[in-house]
């Protein structure tokens, strides 16, 4: 067996951290899309990831659809679930408050988890890696090809979303809802539809995250909650509502966990990330890229 | 209580308030004599509300000091300043909408009669007595401002004019020596404005010093003893209403002489 140098180890920690962080970032981006339009933190975001993984397993492995067909099909199915979530759990709420919305999304995540358990059972499932499982050695670190897919999809997601929000009418309309819903509805934007769209979009992104991570970590029905917590942490660390913030926040969390586990103590790795998160908030109460004024109006 | 007639209750001493590069206040300098009504006027963005926020401790000034009864207060926290005897109202109404009219005024008494957490929890006789005392005082104030018959209504169910009045009543409940009113007449109709004006005078008649920010010149000229004019964060004039009315600098500021 080839030995590994300390530098190689360090690089390995970083690349693993970035991969794990990319998943957190994707979940965080999903949080932000909904948050920007509605100020809701959708705690069912992690369930979209879980569903993405499991639906893909059923279509790709179970029904034998080729990757190229199963991928979009999975996204569409999960997107529909996201839209259903908005229509059944969020929009019927008569007097939304921060807490009632939090509870509604938690209830929805419980429902989705229960349904997933009913459909797929409690066992974990596997997906074949997109481009095989032969690892690449680079600078002394060993990299699974799937890592590149994860990081690549994060980059694609960020680019597509940026273009969407800045170049398309629909995207601009959604941003307008975020800035001022009353004004947006005055100029004829259907705020309800924008909310529905935001749920659809973030569900689709969750599905992507689930599809690309399953070949690395397997997927089972109750994985969603932990992913939601990590993604929420990433979104808050970066500043709620900020897309660059979500990406940076996710990558930082992933890197701290990985370096903390490698260099200090693997038992406390999650704690390191959270301690850093808390201190960032104490120093900058609205996250790295967050807008202090925005965070002030979120009365509870 | 020695010699209260000519004492300056409030001194604003070369206060600078900068937000990033923006100078909201640049060394305005004035004082308020005990027992008078003093108005601060100036065009939009002149720094009037910022000045209120500095006086009441919401902002701590970048430079300079504010003295209350001779003591510097600019390093104190908002609630400590309220304790010392400065009370205020807000330009955008900040009532406790989920509480009743009476409770709003009762909360105003917070600085004067305070029950400890423990005493309240154990429902000690002292705490109960205090609570009764507060209620009676709040009712007295409600009668004074004319809202006694609505004491149990939720505060946010009142019409705008009455909400403004209620805010003044709440400010009075802390038995302040100085009360800062931020545009008490904004958005009111003629009758309501009239009520507000007479209320301000009545408050003053009780010996409370009033500092007033107001756009409605009729109100300002009618009630105030002295006026300070701010423009771009600087004091451009100070004096009795008659003088201010004829001050060319003031006229220029209001007419918007850019050059």
């Amino acid at each position, binding site marked *: *067996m080839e*030995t*590994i140098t300390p530098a190689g180890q360090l690089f390995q920690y970083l690349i*693993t951290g970035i*991969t794990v962080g990319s998943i957190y970032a994707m979940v965080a981006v999903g949080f932000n899309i909904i948050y920007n339009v509605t100020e809701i933190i959708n705690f069912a975001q992690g369930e979209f990831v879980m569903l993405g993984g499991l639906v893909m397993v059923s279509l790709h492995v179970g029904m034998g659809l080729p990757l190229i067909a199963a991928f979009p099909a999975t996204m569409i199915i999960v997107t529909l679930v996201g839209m259903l979530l908005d229509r059944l759990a969020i929009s019927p709420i008569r007097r939304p408050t921060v807490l009632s919305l939090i509870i509604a999304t938690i209830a929805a995540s419980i429902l989705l988890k229960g349904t997933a*358990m009913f459909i797929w059972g*409690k066992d974990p499932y596997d997906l074949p890696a997109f481009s095989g499982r032969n690892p690449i050695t680079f600078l002394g670190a060993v990299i699974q090809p799937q890592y590149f897919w994860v990081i690549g999809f994060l980059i694609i997601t960020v680019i597509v979303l940026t273009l969407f929000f800045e170049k398309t009418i629909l995207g601009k309309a959604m941003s307008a809802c975020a800035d001022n819903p009353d004004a947006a509805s005055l100029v004829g934007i259907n705020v309800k539809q924008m909310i529905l769209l935001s749920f659809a979009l973030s569900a689709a992104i969750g599905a992507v995250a689930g599809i690309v*991570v399953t070949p690395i970590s397997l997927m089972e029905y109750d994985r969603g909650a932990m992913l939601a917590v990590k993604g929420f942490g990433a979104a808050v660390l970066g500043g709620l509502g900020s897309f660059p913030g979500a990406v940076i926040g996710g990558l930082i969390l992933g890197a701290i966990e990985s370096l903390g586990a490698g260099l200090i*103590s693997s038992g406390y790795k*999650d704690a390191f990330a959270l301690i850093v998160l808390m201190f960032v908030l104490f120093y900058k109460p609205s996250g790295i890229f967050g807008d202090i004024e925005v965070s002030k109006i979120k009365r509870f | 209580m020695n010699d209260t007639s000519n004492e300056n209750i409030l001194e604003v001493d070369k206060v600078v308030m900068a937000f990033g590069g923006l100078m909201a206040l640049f060394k305005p300098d004035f004082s308020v004599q005990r027992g008078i009504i003093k108005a601060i006027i100036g065009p939009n963005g002149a720094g009037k509300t910022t000045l209120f926020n500095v006086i009441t401790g919401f902002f701590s000034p970048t430079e300079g000091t504010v003295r209350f009864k001779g003591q510097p207060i600019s390093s104190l926290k908002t609630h400590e300043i309220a304790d010392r005897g400065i009370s205020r109202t807000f330009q955008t109404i900040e009532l406790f909408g989920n509480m009743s009219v009476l409770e709003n005024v009762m909360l105003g008494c917070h600085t004067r009669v305070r029950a400890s957490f423990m005493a309240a929890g154990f429902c000690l006789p002292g705490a109960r007595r205090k609570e009764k005392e507060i209620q009676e005082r709040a009712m007295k104030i409600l009668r004074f401002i004319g809202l006694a018959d609505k004491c149990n209504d939720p505060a946010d169910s009142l019409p705008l004019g009455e909400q403004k009045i209620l805010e003044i009543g709440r400010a009075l409940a802390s038995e302040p020596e100085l009360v800062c009113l931020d545009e008490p007449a904004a958005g009111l109709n003629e009758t309501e404005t009239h009520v507000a004006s007479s209320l301000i005078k009545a408050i003053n008649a009780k010996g409370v010093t009033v500092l007033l920010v107001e756009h409605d010149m009729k109100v300002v000229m009618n009630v105030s003893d002295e006026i300070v004019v701010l423009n771009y964060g600087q004091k451009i004039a100070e004096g009795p209403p008659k003088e201010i009315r004829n001050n060319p600098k003031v006229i220029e500021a209001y007419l918007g002489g850019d050059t």
Partner: protein
Amino acid sequence: MKLRRIVIFTTVCLFSLGFLVSPALAFKVGAVFSVTGRTSFLGDPEKKTAVMVAEQINAAGGINGEKLELIVYDSEGDATKANLAVKKLITQDKVSVVIGPSLSGTSMAVVPLAAKYKTPLISCAASYKITWDKEKGTARKWVFKTPQTDTMAVDAIYSALKQKGISKIAIMSVTSGFGASGRGELIRLAPEYGMTIMADEKYGPKDTDMTVQLTKIKGLAPKAIVNWSVGPTQVVVLRNWRDLGMKSIPFYQSHGFGSRKNIELAAGAAEGVFCPLGAVNIAELLTPYDTQYAVAQRYLKDYKAKYNEPLSSFGGHAWDALHMAAQALASVGDDKAKIRDYLENNIKGFVGQHGVFFYSPDDHIGLDKAAFRMVVVRDGDWALAD
């Protein structure tokens, strides 16, 4: 106020209605498993097995002609819930013996109840602490258990390592009760076998990647890795081990790896991995001369026929527990003290799924390390090591 009282009253009435059906005479056995929740991979097969065994016993005429009534509650792996469920079984359902719970944690939460209510409890969890009272230095009077302990698994692994002349090892564990308990035994027994633990790494039960921990281990170049976990993490860790090119370092899994599903999920990465398993896992590999051959074969066949899913070894713990309880009921009736005495004194050579049980006043575990056989993954299936 009045309205609230009416609402409460009707609720109470409604929910009490369901209980008014009085049960028929029968031998009652209670069971508490973590059927749902994170540790359902233990409780689910246990419940299915227990239900199947009870049906089989009743189909064969019951116990001395009386029906065996099995009452199963779900603990969801929650200590509080397990505690409530056991109390309910004992005080309300009036069972004669309780089997379960599935986890060491939930078992420890109900152990005091067995003594308090003088009811025999046959736990289906691993830790030796369940039956052993450290303070008194005796076995807990009312508590028995069926699974092999972590100590036995560690014994089996360390013996195998010693045989191969390996002494420098790295250990990895999941931060759950199962992992922590195994880790504790690995550390405790290391000096006895002359093992040096070079790295002691941990990961969370929902972690997505263990590359970091393995990279750290790789840098230390131990001669073997011992991993203690359950659920998907033990599969992910194998894939990372393979991807990092560490296959030259032998990998030992705990007995928690005992399901073919794991080999399948590892997608080839499990080749060459060792683990200690009970007979039930490898029924097909047993020779007909093996003591456990008959019971293991029958269980495998019945389970597959009834549930149409691969057998999980954890169900075997419930099989052993319920069969022993039934045997005691058949011999001494439903007197709880007599059942306890019977278990302690008359379970001698009971052939179960996970071993041949010999209980005694000092030993309420009943198994020794012979209950484990060292198995290796070869061509995607179990094979006996050596």
